[in-house]
């Protein structure tokens, strides 16, 4: 399986994703420069975290105009697997590849810590290796992860099982106290209509090695690899 990690100016988790895919998953991986327009060589595209273009206008707002994003949109439209992590999620929202938008965390501060998220739908390309309701311990690190969307969108997301991860307590309870950023319905990750596009605020690449304190993030990588192989 060949992954492409998209590098925007200001991305800063691209090397982390590359490291995990290459050294931990032992899959093929390349960096995809933001000016590249051909992504046909890849089985899965990763939009990594960071501060693309400094997040100066609004998170992801400038990156969506990078030449590569048109290729990413075409890739996704043809059913290609795309995962956006943190800033990558924000870019997918700005690009309209996922519905909704991000607000600043209710604390108005950047928050970096381990968070617990519950798998709300284990029957997706991104979560099939996890159990329904399984609690994953994965770090978050963002200033704008307060997800929001209009009522109709939220209803559709819930109805179609496209809310993939929710912030929860260590016991799996989805509560206001367990919500680190004010995100509506404690949403931490959602999928697009075809489930091939996945955006999430937690960083699975930061929870993919024992030495870093959690390997729960591996479930996400392993899911997409299993999905890819089952698809043949």
């Amino acid at each position, binding site marked *: 399986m060949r992954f492409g990690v998209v590098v925007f100016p200001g991305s800063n988790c691209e090397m982390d994703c590359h490291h995990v895919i290459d050294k931990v998953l032992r899959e093929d991986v390349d960096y995809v420069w933001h000016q590249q327009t051909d992504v046909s060589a890849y089985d899965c595209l990763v939009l990594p975290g960071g*501060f693309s273009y400094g997040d100066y206008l609004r998170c992801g707002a400038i990156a969506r105009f990078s030449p590569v994003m048109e290729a990413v949109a075409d890739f996704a439209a043809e059913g290609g697997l795309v995962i956006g992590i943190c800033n990558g999620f924000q870019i997918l929202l700005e690009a309209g590849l996922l519905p909704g938008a991000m607000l600043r965390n209710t604390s108005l501060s950047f928050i970096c810590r381990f968070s617990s998220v519950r798998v709300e739908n284990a029957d997706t390309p991104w979560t099939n290796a996890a159990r329904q309701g399984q609690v994953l311990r994965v770090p978050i690190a963002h200033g704008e992860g307060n997800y929001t969307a209009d009522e109709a969108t939220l209803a559709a997301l819930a109805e179609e099982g496209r809310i993939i991860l929710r912030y929860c307590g260590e016991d799996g309870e989805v509560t206001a106290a367990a919500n680190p950023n004010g995100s509506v319905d404690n949403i931490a990750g959602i999928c697009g209509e075809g489930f091939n596009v996945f955006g999430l605020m937690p960083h699975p690449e930061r929870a993919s090695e024992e030495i870093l304190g959690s390997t729960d993030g591996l479930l996400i990588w392993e899911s997409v690899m299993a999905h890819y192989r089952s698809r043949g």
Partner: protein
Amino acid sequence: MTELYEELGLTEDEYRDIIRILGREPSKVELGMYSLMWSEHCSYKSSKPVLSQLPTRASYVLQGPGENAGIIDIGGGLAAAFKMESHNHPSAVEPYQGAATGIGGIVRDIFTMGARPIACLDPLRFGSLESPRQRYLFSGVVAGIAGYGNCLGIPTVGGDIYFDECYDGNILVNVMAIGIMPKENLIRGQATGVGNAVVLMGNRTGRDGIGGASILASQEFDETSQEKRPSVQVGDPFTEKLLIEACLELLEKNLLVGLQDLGAAGISCACSETAARGGVGMKIELKNVPLREEMDPFEIMISESQERMLAIVEPRKLDEVLATCERWGLPAVVIGEVTEGDMLEIYWYGEKVVEVPASSLASGPVYERAAERPAYLDEVQSADLAALEHPSDLNRVLLDLVSGPNLCDKRLVYEQYDHMVQLNTVVYPGSDAAVLRVKGTSKALAVSVDGNSRYVYLDPYGGTQIAVAEAARNVVAAGGVPMALTNCLNFGNPERPDIFWQFKESVRGLADAARHMELPVVSGNVSFYNESFGTAIYPTPVVGMVGLIGTLSTRRTIAFPEEGLVVAMLGDTLDELGGSEYLRLVHGMTAGRPPALDLEVEKSVQTTCIEGIRRGIILSAHDCSEGGAAVALLECCCAGGVGATLEVDTPLQPVSWLFSESQSRFVVTLREEDLGALEDLAASRQVRVYALGRTGGSRLIVGDWIDLGVDEMKAVREEALGRLLKG
């Protein structure tokens, strides 16, 4: 002209020196350059003769002081570059941008040497949080560090924060960065090769930060300080991130001869320092400098606009250099060339506006300042502590200590910093030292900063030795062997004999401790004039220690790892409440003598601990420092979520055993069956091991002195800072 040199911060003697060097009156631009380069901040004119006593060599030191950062060999073809510096005055005037550009500056120092920055640590000192202004400064500084560092993708993994009224008028924002590089990528800030191009990369030059080094950093604060806001630079972390990637790519491709960042004194400093180090001259045409706004040559030469680099490039590699910068979207232009001789010639649309020997800028005047022992010392040192009445509710005292600003949990701060990015942080903040794995090897670096200014105030020599010892002890507790140190020396006005005496004694302490512990000082920074309205801060030397952990599996944290382990104290506890947090908090006193430090004992205790960890005997380790044994034990319980039941057999009165900050001690855990082995290890070094009891349960019980629930202690510690910040 006489007025201008004074306005720029030069003395009459210095002005005469300039005339002597040039054989004529300097032009306005030249005067501006000298004023910056000869400022205390850039020239170290007061500190240089004192700093010369610091030990700087060891077989593994690849670069000592004098460059942008110090570098040590960590084996396997890799090297670590690190440095600490201050951004005190800018942060006191504009906390967010001051702190942010502090991060920008120290990070540039690291990649300027060819290393990828892998972590930052920030020692911060504020006044009392009861003051709204201090709360504003605190929040602004933390947000500035987060805003800049997080954007760069460099984890902020540690630091320390102290609050004391002595910083009410002059906060301290010190910043340390560390980077890793393949040894062969080491590059220096030198211009060589006549005919080579001088390339300016990065942000356009604007009027921000004009005269920062001379006006802001080399003067005390008074009622005009707020008017100095235009002297604070404005940070652009996005451009800095591009600079990091572009510069590292240029170095990887071996396209550069020399590289220098533009910090204090901007183009003036970068050109004169690189030329002086390379023993060459330089010819610069300022019309080529990309500008944000209309500026005259004087302003261009002294602007401290951020995120700029100067590269020396062979003509045949120039196209590739410019193309690489373009790919990263970075402006890069040739502004001049390296010339024979040592003259720095600056042109403005063809007209020569500067012609000075580069070395005369880079090596300014040196002063032997007068030093005199301050009168306050006798008074504070002779305070009668024996007469104090101690409270009887020791549980209350312990909870008060850990809910005070200095010893409370700092989660609220470090969770605003991305401390995980780059996937190297294998011991997270909250332990004695941050531990960063070195990918591709089984090694890790343990890094810690330390500097208790209360000790230094009470005894500049001994207090500074403690800073070295404790920073090393933190590294040891994490399982590391201390290798080398950097430092930032924050003091008041060096022109005052009492302040300069503090400085001299402190540096003597630093030198003696470093020499005795065989720890070379590879980089550092001096920050003087930390005064406001004539009142100086406590002398505040801060030490940044870097150590090596040979195999990752021998890293340790402070947390009690499990139930049923023996809890032991390595080293002796003495009746030493002088300068303690207890004394300050309970009795409102900063008095007495700081704890005694015997460097020989310190070394023995440290080697015992390292050896115990290496052999797998010691399973967790925490140094005893502020708050004494009681606070150390509490922290071990809270970090591990495990209680302990302990008995202390001591002739000391309870408060002395619990809260004395005696040096050269560790709280360790080990298995029962290993106790004999640890005692043997210790005995061979004349170190005592005191078995105190066992881990287990959900309470910390120390004889009939302390009995507190772990959850309660955690809650009290964690909610404290948030409460204090609400005022």
